[in-house]
C-alpha cells in the first residue's frame, strides 16, 4: 500500500467497559466491572449524540460513531482517501480517579485496539493510552507496548490532573523519547478543573471553544518547565486543538519570555522557536479565516511548514464532503502535511511494507 496520505487523528469508539473491554481486562477488573457495574466511561467532552461527536453519514445504525470497523474503513480510507490512519481512542480511562483502575482500563484499551483494529487492517496504527494519574504506571504501559511498532505515539488529554510540563511526568517523557513515541495531546478533559480560569461554562459550545486555551496552557507548561531541554528528541502533537490561534499565542509567549525569562533561565530560546521545533498540530479543525489571503497569512505567521499534519478527526463532524483538507491552504503545506510531516513526526510509522 503506497503511502499517500496519513490521517493522524481518527477515533475508534469503545462500546463499553462491560462489553468491548471485558475480554481484555485482567481477572480482578473483569470481576470488578461486572460486580460493581462499572461502565459508562464515555468522556463528558464528547457526548455520543452531540453533532460534533459524529458526522451524520458516519453514524452507524446502532452504537456510537466510530464503533464499527468496516464503517471506519469506508469513511477514513475509501471516502476520505487516507492510505493509513492513526487511531486515538477517547474513552474515560484517563479520567478515572483510581490509578489502578485507570491503568487496568488503559491496558485493556491498548490490547483491544491491537487485537480488533490493528490486527484487522494493516493500514491502521494507534496511540498508546496511558494512565497519567500514576506516571509510574504510565511508564509501565509504554514499556509493555513499546515493542509493538504499530503503536506510534502516547495519548494524553489536554486537561488532566496537573499541567503536563510538571516534573512528575518526566519519566513518561523519558520513556516516550526512548521509544521514539511523540506525546499526542488530544482535546478532552478529565474534569478536574474548570476549562478556563473563568469557571464552568454553561454550554458544550463554549466548553469546546476554550479547549484551545487549555492547549495553549499545556504548551506554556511544557516550554517553561524545560521539558524540551531535558528531552531534546521529544515531539508533541496537538490533536483537535484548532490551529489558527498559534501565531498570536507565539507572539505573546515570545514577548512574555523576553520580559520575565529571568524566572526560567533554562529556557534559552524564544518559545516560538522551541514550539516550531518540537510541536506539531493536526489540521482538523483549523478554525480558519474565511478568505484565502488570510489563510495564507496565518500559515506565514506560524512560520514553519513542518508543523502541520493531515487529519480528518473522523468520525467527528468538522467538515462536510469528502475532502478533509481545510480550504485555501497553500500548496506547499498540503504537499508536506499528508506524508512528509507525519513520517517525520511519528518515526515509528514504518509504512513501506
Amino acid at each position, binding site marked *: 500500500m503506497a503511502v499517500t496520505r496519513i490521517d493522524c487523528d481518527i477515533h475508534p469508539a469503545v462500546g463499553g467497559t462491560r462489553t468491548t473491554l471485558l475480554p481484555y481486562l485482567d481477572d480482578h477488573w473483569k470481576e470488578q466491572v461486572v460486580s460493581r457495574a462499572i461502565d459508562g466511561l464515555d468522556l463528558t467532552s464528547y457526548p455520543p449524540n452531540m453533532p*460534533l461527536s459524529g458526522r451524520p453519514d458516519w453514524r452507524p445504525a446502532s452504537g456510537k460513531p466510530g464503533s464499527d470497523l468496516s464503517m471506519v474503513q469506508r469513511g477514513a480510507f475509501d471516502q476520505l482517501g487516507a492510505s493509513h490512519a492513526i487511531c486515538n481512542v477517547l474513552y474515560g480511562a484517563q479520567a478515572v480517579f483510581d490509578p489502578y483502575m485507570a491503568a487496568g482500563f488503559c491496558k485493556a484499551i491498548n490490547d483491544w485496539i491491537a487485537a480488533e483494529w490493528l490486527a484487522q487492517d494493516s493500514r491502521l496504527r494507534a496511540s498508546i493510552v496511558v494512565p497519567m494519574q500514576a506516571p509510574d504506571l504510565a511508564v509501565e504501559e509504554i514499556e509493555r507496548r513499546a515493542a509493538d511498532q504499530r503503536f506510534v505515539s502516547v495519548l494524553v488529554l489536554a*486537561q488532566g*490532573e*496537573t*499541567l*503536563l*510540563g510538571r516534573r512528575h511526568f518526566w519519566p513518561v517523557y523519558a520513556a516516550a523519547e526512548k521509544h521514539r513515541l511523540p506525546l499526542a495531546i488530544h482535546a478532552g*478533559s478529565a474534569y478536574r*478543573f*474548570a*476549562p*478556563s*480560569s*473563568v*469557571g*464552568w*461554562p*454553561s*454550554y*458544550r*459550545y*463554549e466548553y*469546546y*471553544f*476554550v479547549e*484551545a*486555551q*487549555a492547549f*495553549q*496552557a*499545556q504548551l*506554556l*507548561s511544557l516550554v*517553561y518547565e524545560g521539558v524540551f531541554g531535558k528531552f531534546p528528541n521529544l515531539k508533541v502533537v496537538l490533536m483537535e486543538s*484548532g490551529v*489558527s*490561534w498559534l*501565531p*498570536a*499565542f507565539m*507572539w*505573546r*509567549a*515570545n*514577548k*512574555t*519570555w523576553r*520580559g*520575565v*525569562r529571568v*524566572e526560567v533561565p533554562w529556557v534559552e530560546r524564544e518559545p516560538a522557536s522551541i514550539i516550531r521545533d518540537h510541536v506539531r498540530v493536526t489540521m482538523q*479543525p*483549523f478554525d*480558519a*479565516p474565511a478568505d484565502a489571503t*488570510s489563510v495564507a*497569512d496565518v500559515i*506565514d*505567521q506560524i512560520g514553519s511548514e513542518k508543523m502541520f499534519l493531515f487529519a480528518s478527526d473522523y468520525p467527528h*463532524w468538522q467538515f462536510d464532503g469528502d475532502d478533509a483538507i481545510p480550504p485555501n491552504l497553500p500548496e506547499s503545506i498540503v504537499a508536506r502535511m499528508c506524508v512528509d510531516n507525519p513520517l517525520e513526526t511519528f518515526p515509528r510509522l514504518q509504512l513501506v511494507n
Partner: protein
Amino acid sequence: MSDVLDRPLTEQEATAATRLRIIDCDIHPSIHSHSDLDEFLPKRWQEHLKTYGGHLRTPYIGTTPYPRSSPLICRRDAWPPTGGVPGSDLAFMRTQHLDPLDVEFGILQVLDLFIFSQQNLEFGAAIQRAINDWQLAFWAHRDPRLKASILAGQDDMQLAIAEIERCARTGEYIQINVAPRANEPLGRRRYWPIYERAQELGLPLGIHVGGYGGHAPTGGGWPSYYAEEHQSNAHTMAAQLASLVIEGVPERFPDLKIVFIEGGFGWIASAMWRMDQHFERFRSEVPHLKRRPSEYVKEQFWFTTQPIDEPDEARHLRQLIEWVGVERLLFSSDYPHWDFDDPRFAFKTPLSDAERKKIFNTNARAVYRF
C-alpha cells in the same frame, strides 16, 4: 528616573502619536497605605481590614502566588521621588506620564487590595465603595483628565446594583467594572442585572484582567511560573468573550458596550474564527443566538491594546489589526506597570493618520462619550 522619558523627544520620535492627544484607557493609581481609605470606609471595615485582612483564594497573606518580575509589578523608574508606591503620587504621574505623553483623558483602573477577589463579599463591597469614592476625591477631582470607573463585584448582585446606583447618581463615572474571574463565567444569567443596568445607564462594562477567582488559571491546573500565569490573562479574556457571546449577553442587551482591558488583542481574530467555525455544529444548543458570534464581537466589544503583540515581522501586526478591526481598538499604556506600552513606540507597524487617530483617541471618545 528614566533617561528615556526625561530627555526631549527627537524629531523622529515626535510622531503623529504624540502630536495627537491620547486617551489612555488603562492607568493604575494606588493608595499609599490602607489609611488613605479611612475617610471612605466605615469603622467596622477599617477594623476588619486591620484584624483579618483580605481573604483571597491564594496561599499567601503578603504577596501573590507567582512572584512578579519587579516589585509591585511596576516599572522601576515609576517610584515617586517623594516616597510611596508607583501610581500613588498625582504630581509625579503628571510629570512622568500624563504631561509628556499628552494624555487628554486617562481611565483609572484600581487593582489595590485585590478588590474583586475578596471572599468576604460584604467586605469586598465595602472596599469597592471606598475605592470608588477615593477615585473621585484623590484623582478625578484633582485632575479632570482622570476618569473613574464604578467597581462593582458581581458575586453579590444586590450590593453591586446598590453601588452602581449610588455612583451613577453622581454622573461622574464613565464605566462599570466587574471582576474578570468571579465565581462563574461572566455570561451566566445571574450576572445579567448588571448588564441590564449598564445598558440603561449608557455606561460601558469594563473588564480588567487580574485577581483570583474560584478557579485555577488554566483548564489543566495550576502553572508553576509567572511566565505562564501572565499569559493566562489572555486565556481568561478569550474565555470571557466566549461566555458573554455564547450565553447571549450582546443578543439580549444590544446597546451594551463591553471593553476588555489589558488582555491585548492578538487572540481576538482566531477567537472569532473559532467561534464562527463551530457555530453551525452547536447551533441547536444555543438557539438564542441569532447571528454569528463574530458579528456581536464586531459591534459590541472593544479591546485595549496593551500588552501589544510584537511579531518579528511588522506586516504580521498589520494583518492582525485588519482582522480585528481598527474600530475595536482602544489605546492603553498600563502605566506604571512593568509591561507598560509607550504610545510612541508600541505599534511596530505603520498606521495611517486616520487609524492612529481612532486607536489613540476617537474610538475611546465615542465608547466613553467624552
